[in-house]
Structures are given as C-alpha cells and as structure tokens.
C-alpha cells in the first residue's frame, strides 16, 4: 500500500510544516518579549560648518557640517535576548528648515554590533572601566570624541536656514528569524544649535 517514497514524502512534508510552525512561534514570542533599553546619552562637541566638497567625482563646493561626539549607552539587554543576531546602531540628526518647513534626517555615524562581538564598542577613549568578563560588556556602547562617519550636507547647499538639530542614537535589531524591530538607544540633552558658517 505505502511505498518507501510515499513514507519519505509524508515525513518530510510533516517535518517542514512543524519546523515552520515552530519558527513562527519563536518569532512571535521573541518579538513580544523584547526587553526595553534605558535611553543613554549623546554629547555633541565641536560642531562646525565650513565650505567643502562631497567625496564624489565632480562635486560642487557647498556647506558641510562636521562634529565630534561622545555616546554612552548600554544595549546588553537587547544582545542577551535569545533571538538577536545583530544590532545596528546609528546616530541621526533631524532638523527642519525655517522658511520652507522641509524636514530632513541624516545618518552621521553607524556601527554593527554582532552577537559574537566580545569587545565593547569603543573608538578613541581609553579610560574605559574593564568589565569582569568579556561577554558581559559587549553591548556597552562607549564612544568618545568620534567624528561623523558620513559627510553631513543639506540638499540646498547651505545650513543658513537651520536653527537647531536633534541628535538621536537609534538601534535596529536583526533577529535570527522573525520580525525586525528598532528603537531609540540614546539622545542628546535637548536640541543642538547649528553655528554660523566659518569663513576663511
């Protein structure tokens, strides 16, 4: 009645179905049980506006903003969640033009934190307290005196029209399987005023 082929077919289809159901449960459960993060601190230093060019062939001269910043936040709860493959943290500036009301958002800096990363995320700072075990500290984001990774420009070519910008560090969580989620990891204390252009 039943051939080997039929049995094999039956077993494999049953196994596939159950694995898919299990994966569905895992993604729902991990999405619902996602831990919350204490919002950390971003401190902006040395924000200046000067004339420059994008690193691009044939770029015209325009106003570019550059800055240094410190970040302190703890993302360990997210990394310790069982369905976390990777965290992507990125610092954004969001601002509005006064006259037109156009709203802008740009990424200034980003970093990938993998689950396998045993180190802290630290850039230049060396006065970082040592954690007891390497695994514990991997989600500690301690960044000091780092420059923006991407050039910050405004499509109109000038920052004259902009009074202030809000700096936020976001995270984006990639699961092993399931739903992607994101949130805020750190914010600056209030908006940052955009200084006038430095003329040379």
């Amino acid at each position, binding site marked *: 009645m039943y051939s080997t082929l039929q049995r094999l077919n039956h077993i494999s289809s049953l196994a596939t179905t159950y694995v898919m159901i299990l*994966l569905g449960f895992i*993604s729902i459960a991990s999405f619902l049980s996602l831990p919350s993060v204490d919002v950390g601190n971003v401190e902006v230093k040395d924000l200046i506006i000067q004339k420059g060019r994008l*690193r*691009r062939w044939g770029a015209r001269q325009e106003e570019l903003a550059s800055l240094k910043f410190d970040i302190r936040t703890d993302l360990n709860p997210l990394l310790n969640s069982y369905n976390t*493959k*990777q965290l*992507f943290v*990125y610092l*954004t500036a*969001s601002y509005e033009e006064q006259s*037109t*009301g*156009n*709203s*802008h*958002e*740009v*990424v200034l800096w*980003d970093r*990938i934190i*993998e689950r396998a990363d045993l180190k802290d995320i630290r850039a230049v700072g060396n006065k970082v307290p040592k954690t007891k075990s390497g695994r514990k500290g991997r989600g500690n984001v301690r960044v000091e005196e780092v420059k923006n990774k*991407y050039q910050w420009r405004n*499509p109109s070519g000038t920052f004259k029209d902009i009074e202030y910008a809000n700096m936020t560090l*976001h995270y*984006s969580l*990639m*699961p*092993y*399987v*399931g*739903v*992607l989620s*994101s949130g805020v990891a750190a914010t600056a204390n209030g908006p940052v005023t955009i200084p006038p252009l430095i003329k040379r």
Partner: protein
Amino acid sequence: MFSNEIARLKTLGVQGLLFQALNLLTVISSGLMMWKGLCLFTNSESPIVVVLSGSMEPAFYRGDILFLTNPADVPYEIGDITVYKIPGADIPIVHRVIESHISNTTQLLLTKGDNNPGDDITLYNGIEWIERKHIIGKVRGFLPYVGYVTIAMNDFPQLKYALLGCVGLVMLIQQET
C-alpha cells in the same frame, strides 16, 4: 521502467487525463491567486524577496528570505531597510536608508549597504536621489537560508526545468485513492 505508468495512463482515458490536467491548473492558479492577494495586502509588487548580494552582511546573507510591506501613506524613515529597483536595472537592491529629505511634495532618499564602504549613488544610474516610486517595500521579517533554492535554480536553469517536469508528470500520473 515506465511500463506501469504508461499502462495507468491508458486506463485513465482522455477524460481522466483532462481531469488531472484540470487539477494541475487549479493548483497553479490558486498559488498565483495567493501571491497576488499578498501583493494587494502589502501594497508591494513583490512582498517576498530573496537576498542576492552580500552588501548587507552580516545581517542578510545570500539566500535569506525577506518579507516586505509598503503602506501607501507612511513615509519611509531613516534606518529602514528598503528594497528598491532603479529603472534600467533588473535586480532589486536591499539597502538601508541613510538620508531622508522631505519637502511638501516629495521625499528624497539616499541608501547604503551596511557592509559597503560608501553610499549607493553609483548604483543609481545617474539619479541623485531615489524616491517612493523606486521602492518596492520595507523589510519587516526575516527567514534565513530558505531562499537558496531559488538561487540554485537561477544558477542552474536545468534544475528548474527538471523540477517542473517532475512535478507535472507526478500530478498527471498520480491516481486519487
């Protein structure tokens, strides 16, 4: 070798054969209907895509499956992973939004792959920004490895035809018990 099957085909007769063909068509059309229904529901022309390049590693590798949505009135946010298709290019690209400039008429976007050193301006075929019309959807869900089947079929077209032929033959020969 196939004498049994041929004998069975003969016993089926023309009517039986047509009935089996109809069954096959039902399966194909219901699959198509489900896909198009999903397209309508997510408002995306392709709600499920397979990752083809390594530019988002280690988040997405070749062969991972992504589930997309494209709600009509919600603007894309910075940090969203979008799938976009530039006119003239045949492969959709999965990259993250790193700049968003909203005016009262348009939203200009710039994207970058997490694993790439620079932004995507060189991939845009002469456009300076991408806009909503280029974007297929935003990535909402993730399923690893499963899409490798389609990559294998694209790399070895014979495999695709062999598989399709086998399925068709089995459907025709199979007798309902």
